[in-house]
C-alpha cells in the first residue's frame, strides 16, 4: 500500500512516501525549491518522492494532508470575530490568505495529482505531530507530548500510544491546550521582541539565553499563568497575535520588558540593553522549561510509562528536552529528527496508514536520511570545468585525507548519501571543522556562516566516546542521536573543545552510531587518531538565510562563495584554488563586451 503524506501552506512544506507501512523517502520543499522555509504546496517534493519510488500518482492508495484545513480556517475566523472591531485591519488579509488556497486543500491536492477526492485523507495537526514522534521511535508503548505554535486549535496535547503485538496501533490524545494559549507562540513572541525572525530563529533565543540570567521570570510569569488543572493560560493583554496578523506583542508587553531590540543592531552584552535582552531570553527559556517539565512530569505520573515521545516545533528546544529527560521521571525521551511541521508529512502518512487504514505495525528505520542522494560525478565535472583541484579517492584513503585536512585546520564541506529530513545536518550535508579553538569558531562565523557570534556550534562524536567528553544522563545518548538535547561538556575538556562549548559549558551534540553514517563515523575515528579527540564541529551545510544544500552543485556553489577549503562528495574531493578568482573572469568577459561593442550593442 502506497501512502503519500503532505505538509503545506504555513511553514516549511514537505512530502513523504510510505510503501507498505515503511517510509521510503521524504523531503522538504525548501531543499528542492531553494527558498528557505518554503511554505508553498510541495509540488517539487511530491514529484521527487514519486520519481524516487518510480510511482505515478494513480498508484497511490491514499494522499494524506497533515491537518484539517477547514478547522484551521474556523479558528482564524473565530479569532477575527472575537477581536471585533480591533481586527478590522487584519481581517481582509487573513481572509484572502486563507480563502486563496489554504482552505481548499482537497481541491488543490486533487488538481495537482489528479487523484480521486475520496483518496485524500486528513489528520489533525497534532495527530500528525504525535504520529511523527511516536511511530518513528524504537518503542512499543510511550506517552506522547506535542507542543508547537498552533495547529488547528490545539497548541499542546498529551496522550499515549501503543504498537500492539497483534499489529494494531493505538494513538490516544487525551487533552489539549487551545489557541491562543500556546508555549510556541509565547516563545515566538519573544523571538520577535528580541529582533529575530519568527518561526525561524527561535533557536537564537535559546542560544542567547545562555548569556543571561533568568531575572525576569516574574515578568514572564505575568504573561503566562498556570491553571489549577496543571495546564497554563496566556494573558491576552500582552499579546496581539491572536487579533492581528502583523504584530505579536502588545504595548503592555513593551511596558513590562522595555523597548524591543532593533534587529539590525548587533547584541552587545557589554551594554545594559544587551544584558536585558539576554535576561529576557534566559527568563522565557526558563519558564518554557519549567512548564514543559511540569506537564511531562504529570503525564509520567498519569501514564506510568517509561518512554516519552515529544513532537511539534517546541521539541527543537534542546535545553528544554534535556531538562524533561532529567526531571520528568521518564527514562527515555524520543524526539524525531523533524519534530516541526515538515515532519508532519511523515506523521500524517503514518497516522493514516496505521489508524485510518488499519495496516499492521512496522518498524520505521531509525535514521534521518530520507532525501535525494548526492551525485559525486556532477561535482567532479563542474569543478574540473572551473579549473579547481579535483581528485578521486577510495573510501579509506578519502577518510585519511579528510582527517589530515581537518587536523591542518581546514574547513570541510561534507556531502554523503541522502539528505537529512528535518532542520539539522546530521552528517550527510555538514560543514566539518576542528572543534578545539575559539579562533575556529570565529572563523566559521565570519567567513563561512556569516552570522551572529553568540550562537554555538554543535559537535559530533562517536556514541562510544560521547560519555568521555560530555556529561550524558541516562537516556542522553538517545536524545543526542538527532541532536535533540543540550548537555554539559565535561569541564576538563572544555578548553580543548572551545569551538563547540557554549558560554554556559554546554553543547548540542550528536552522538553518532556507526550504522547511521559509517563514513562520518570512520572520519571521527581517523581524526581522533590525529588529534587525540574524536570530536568534530558539525554545522549545517548552508550559508545564513539559505536552505541546507541538497545537490552536489549547490554544495559546490556554496563552497565557491565562502571560506570552505575542501569539498567532499562521495569519492570526489575538491580543494579550493586561490587563483580562481573573480576579477580575471570579469576581464575575460570584458573582451566579449569589447568585441560586441564593435558590432553595435544595445
Amino acid at each position, binding site marked *: 500500500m502506497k501512502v503519500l503524506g503532505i505538509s503545506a501552506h504555513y511553514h516549511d512544506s514537505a512530502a513523504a512516501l510510505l510503501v507498505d507501512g515503511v517510509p521510503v523517502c521524504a523531503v522538504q520543499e525548501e531543499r528542492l525549491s531553494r527558498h528557505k522555509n518554503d511554505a508553498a504546496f510541495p509540488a517539487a517534493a511530491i514529484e521527487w518522492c514519486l520519481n524516487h519510488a518510480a510511482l505515478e500518482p494513480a498508484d497511490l492508495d491514499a494522499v494524506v494532508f497533515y491537518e484539517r484545513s477547514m478547522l484551521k480556517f474556523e479558528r482564524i475566523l*473565530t479569532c477575527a470575530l472575537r477581536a471585533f472591531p480591533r481586527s478590522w485591519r487584519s481581517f481582509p488579509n487573513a481572509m484572502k490568505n486563507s480563502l486563496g488556497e489554504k482552505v481548499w486543500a482537497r481541491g488543490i491536492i486533487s488538481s495537482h495529482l489528479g487523484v480521486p477526492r475520496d483518496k485524500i485523507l486528513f489528520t489533525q495537526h497534532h495527530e500528525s505531530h504525535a504520529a511523527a514522534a511516536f511511530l518513528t521511535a524504537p518503542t512499543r508503548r510511550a506517552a506522547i507530548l506535542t507542543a508547537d505554535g498552533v495547529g488547528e486549535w490545539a497548541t499542546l496535547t498529551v496522550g499515549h500510544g501503543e504498537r500492539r503485538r497483534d499489529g494494531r496501533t493505538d494513538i490516544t490524545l487525551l487533552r489539549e491546550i487551545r489557541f491562543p494559549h500556546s508555549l510556541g507562540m509565547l516563545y515566538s513572541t519573544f523571538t520577535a521582541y528580541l529582533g529575530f525572525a519568527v518561526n525561524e530563529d527561535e533557536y537564537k533565543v535559546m542560544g542567547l539565553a545562555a548569556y543571561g540570567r533568568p531575572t525576569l521570570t516574574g515578568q514572564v510569569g505575568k504573561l503566562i499563568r498556570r491553571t489549577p488543572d496543571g495546564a497554563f493560560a496566556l494573558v491576552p493583554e500582552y499579546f496581539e497575535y491572536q487579533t492581528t496578523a502583523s*504584530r505579536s506583542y502588545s504595548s503592555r508587553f513593551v511596558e513590562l520588558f522595555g523597548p524591543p531590540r532593533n534587529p539590525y543592531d548587533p547584541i552587545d552584552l557589554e551594554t545594559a540593553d544587551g544584558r536585558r535582552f539576554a535576561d529576557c531570553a534566559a527568563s522565557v527559556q526558563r519558564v518554557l522549561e519549567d512548564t514543559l517539565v511540569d506537564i511531562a512530569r504529570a503525564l509520567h505520573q498519569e501514564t506510568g510509562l517509561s518512554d516519552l515521545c515529544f513532537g511539534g516545533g517546541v521539541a527543537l528546544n534542546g535545553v528544554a528536552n534535556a531538562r524533561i529527560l532529567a526531571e520528568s521521571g521518564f527514562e527515555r525521551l524520543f524526539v524525531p529528527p523533524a519534530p516541526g511541521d515538515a515532519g508532519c508529512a511523515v506523521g500524517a502518512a503514518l497516522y493514516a496508514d496505521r489508524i485510518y487504514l488499519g495496516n499492521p505495525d512496522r518498524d520505521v528505520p531509525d535514521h534521518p536520511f530520507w532525501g535525494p542522494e548526492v551525485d559525486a560525478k556532477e561535482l567532479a565535472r563542474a569543478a574540473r570545468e572551473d579549473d579547481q583541484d579535483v581528485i578521486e579517492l577510495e573510501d579509506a584513503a578519502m577518510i585519511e585525507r579528510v582527517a589530515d585536512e581537518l587536523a591542518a585546520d581546514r574547513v570541510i564541506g561534507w556531502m554523503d548519501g541522502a539528505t537529512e529530513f528535518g532542520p539539522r545536518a546530521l552528517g550527510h550535508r555538514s560543514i566539518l571543522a576542528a572543534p578545539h579553538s575559539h579562533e575556529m569558531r570565529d572563523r566559521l562565523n565570519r567567513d563561512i556562516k556569516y552570522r551572529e557570534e553568540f550562537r554555538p556550534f554543535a559537535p559530533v562524536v562517536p556514541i562510544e566516546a560521547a560519555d568521555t567528553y560530555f556529561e550524558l544522563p541516562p537516556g542522553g545518548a538517545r536524545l543526542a542521536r538527532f541532536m535533540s538535547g543540550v548537555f554539559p561538556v565535561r569541564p576538563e575538556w572544555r578548553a580543548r573543545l572551545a569551538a563547540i562549548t557554549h558560554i554556559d559549558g554546554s553543547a548540542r551534540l550528536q552522538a553518532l552510531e556507526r550504522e547511521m553514517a559509517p563514513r562520518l563515523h570512520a572520519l571521527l575515528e581517523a581524526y581522533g587518531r590525529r588529534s587525540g579527540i574524536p570530536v568534530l564541529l558539525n554545522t549545517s551545510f548552508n550559508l545564513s538565510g539559505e536552505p541546507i544544500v541538497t545537490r552536489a552543485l549547490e554544495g559546490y556553489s556554496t563552497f565557491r562563495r565562502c571560506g570552505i577549503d575542501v569539498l567532499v562528495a562521495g569519492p570526489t574531493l575538491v580543494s579550493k584554488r586561490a587563483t580562481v578568482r573573480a576579477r580575471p573572469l570579469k576581464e575575460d568577459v570584458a573582451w566579449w563586451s569589447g568585441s560586441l561593442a564593435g558590432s553595435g550593442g544595445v
Partner: protein
Amino acid sequence: MSPLARVAPLDRILLPVHRWVWNDFDRRVRKLLAFAEVESDGGRDILRAAEVTPDALLRRLYLEHAIDELHHGDLFRQRGAALLRTRSTRLRTLFNGTPLPGGHGLDDLSIQDEPDHRLLAFLHVAEKAAAGRFTIYRDLVDDDPQTRAIFEEILRDEVFHMNYTYTQLARVMPRSYRWQVWRARASRLWKRYLRVAAGIASVVGNAVLTIMYFILLPPFAWMARRAERREPVGWTPISRTRDDSPTGQY
C-alpha cells in the same frame, strides 16, 4: 555599448517622487533595507541559475554575479542599519513581527524552468533598469557621502552585469539576441501591468471585505465573544467521539 547606465524616461518624469522618497530619513532607511532584501533575493535566484545551467562559462558568470548581488544586499543592509542606529525612528514599530504564518507573493520567474537565453535577456533588461535607477538615487543622496559611495560601487557592478548578460546572450543566441531582449522587455512590462492590476484588485478586495466586516460580522462577533467567555481555560479533553472521519476537512 555605453558603459554608463541610462536613466529611463519614466524615471526622469518621476524624479520629484524619487526626491520626495530619498529626502525623508525614515523613507530612506526603509528603501535601503528594502533594496537589501531585493538584492539578496536576486542574488539567490542567480545562484540558482548557476546551479542549474549546463553551460560552464555561464555557471562561472552567474556565480560571480550572484556573489555581487549578495554583497549589494549586505551593503544596503549595513548602511540601512547604520543609519537606523544614528536616530530612533518610527520604523521600530515595524519590527513587531508575528509568528502566525503568511503567504507567498508574485514571483518574477521560476529560474529552474527558464532556458539560459530567456534568463540572460531578463537579467539584462532588469540590470539595465536597476542601473538607471541607481544612477538617480546616487545623485539624490548627495548629502550622504557614505550612501552615495555604496551606490557608486553597486553601479559599477550593475554595469558589468548589464554588459555580460548581453554579450552572453549574443553568444548563446547569435541570431535572435535582439529579439530576445525585446521579448524580455515586453514580458517585464506585462508583469508590471499584472502587478499593478493585482495591486488594484487587492485594494478593491480589501475594501469589500472591510465593508462586509462592519456590516455582516457584528452579530457573529457578539456570539463569538459570548462563547469565548464560557470557554474554560486550561486543559480541554479530547473526546473520543469527535468527528474523526478520515476524509473530513473539519
